[in-house]
């Protein structure tokens, strides 16, 4: 067990947590916007959102992450940072992978939110319209608040999947948990099984409380009907 202290375990998991945090916020916003477009009265927005969700959801995340690095950064020169010191590449790769996670996870958030919109009784929207609210008002004031409360549980499983998916950032060299695990297993030979168990435990610790907490929250905030 001694060799574990030679490595920055907490640091690696901290990067994982940061990746998850920024991606989760971005994906939630992007997912809700996409869901709004998918139920909107404007035909073109519906078509765009449907096409986007179907295409991106069926693309491997690894491809998106690789494309954000090779395509956006190395070929097109989109660097996402104004930093010019030596850490610029690390910052760029971190932000590019967050971008890829947002684009990808947003589709799953959108699907979850859309299913939540379907749980809101038709009468609610009809009542809102009878009061003279427009589509945007009906959606944001009446329907979405109820829809979001009913999809906390599906969103929790999207968040847990996202947490695990952040390991894909290792494909473009973001120094998160999977990168450290690989280095440690390589260095420690057959003690590698122990290393694997430590990292496995790390992810259980990261995902289990989230699942339990959001499971409890989904019971608490659900609109009782």
């Amino acid at each position, binding site marked *: 067990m001694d060799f574990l202290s030679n490595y920055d375990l907490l640091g690696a998991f901290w990067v994982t947590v940061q990746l998850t945090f920024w991606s989760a916020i971005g994906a939630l916003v992007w997912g809700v916007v996409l869901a709004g477009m998918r139920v909107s009265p404007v035909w073109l927005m519906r078509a765009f959102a449907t096409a986007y969700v179907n295409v991106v959801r069926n693309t491997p995340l690894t491809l998106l992450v*690789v494309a954000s690095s090779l*395509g956006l950064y190395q070929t097109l020169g989109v660097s996402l940072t104004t930093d010019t010191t030596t850490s610029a590449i690390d910052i760029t790769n971190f932000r590019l992978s967050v971008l890829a996670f947002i684009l990808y996870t947003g589709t799953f958030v959108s699907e979850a939110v859309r299913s939540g919109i379907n749980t809101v009784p038709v009468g609610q929207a009809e009542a809102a319209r009878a009061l003279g609210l427009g589509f945007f008002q009906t959606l944001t004031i009446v329907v979405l608040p109820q829809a979001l409360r009913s999809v906390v549980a599906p969103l929790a499983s999207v968040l847990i999947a996202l947490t*695990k998916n952040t390991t894909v950032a290792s494909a473009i060299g973001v120094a998160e948990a999977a990168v450290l695990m*690989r280095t440690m297993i390589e260095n420690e030979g057959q003690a590698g099984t122990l290393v694997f168990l430590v990292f496995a435990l790390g992810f259980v610790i990261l995902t289990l409380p989230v699942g339990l907490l959001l499971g409890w929250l989904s019971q608490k905030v659900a609109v009782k009907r």
Partner: protein
Amino acid sequence: MSGAPSVLYDAPGPKAKVRNTVYSVVFLVVLAAAAWFVLAALGNKDQLTAKMWSPFVDGGTWTEYLIPGLGTTLLAAVLAIVIALPVGAIFGIARLSEHVWIRVPAGVLVELFRAIPVLMLMLFSNFFYVWYTDIDSDIRPLFAVVTGLVLYNGSVLAEVFRAGISSLPRGQSEAAYALGLRKTQTMLTILLPQAVTVMLPAIVSQLVVVVKDTALGSTILSFSDLLSNYRILSANYGNTIPTLIVIGVIYVVVNMVVTRLAAMLERRMSRRGRSTARPEGPASTTAVPMADLPVADPL
């Protein structure tokens, strides 16, 4: 979305029609601006020249790289799902066991393997094969990728099976016991076949997840699948972006075909469900409808 007005808005009147057209035009302008911006950026870096795209018109690119790559991807995906199915069934049934010493360990294993990222499972399987087996290093990446996928999808499918079996009406197993069948016989001959039929669409759509996850192997284990071809092609022709786009399109097409297949199966299942005589009244509601069953993790 065929003509029928949505819950959220009325069938548009003359004013709303004009407004929607205005929004459409504005959105179109935004989309066109974004497309123009992207195309201009691509054009500036010479990504739109014929030289960049001509490799994909040449049949050699397809027969040498893309089709074999797709073959490896599909091989890994199909192997993984075929092996994960019995594994998932065994663990799903074990979690429903009456014996604590079977139920609890099975539950712990399933929850553990669902919590670990697939990428880590693949990495570890690879090292495991290096240490304890003498599998040839040419084929080791395939073994590692399939093992990682089986461990993860086996545990996801275990939950799918558990839900499928629990969704069957209690009367099914009661009738089987009344006929004098043993627990094992009831499970294997009565419950499992029905559960598999109910869960078949979910199992097929899990194949999409597996196809996407095989791509993990190409970046961390030098598994020579469809995605890994971007290295060879962009090294030969210097056309990174066109290559990634073409490979992405192939993945999307394959996965959409699989999704379509799952939807077709689901329709067929529900048709069969209707034609089978079911007891009317409250007894039939004990079966959980398909829509309420947990879907596999989105990954």
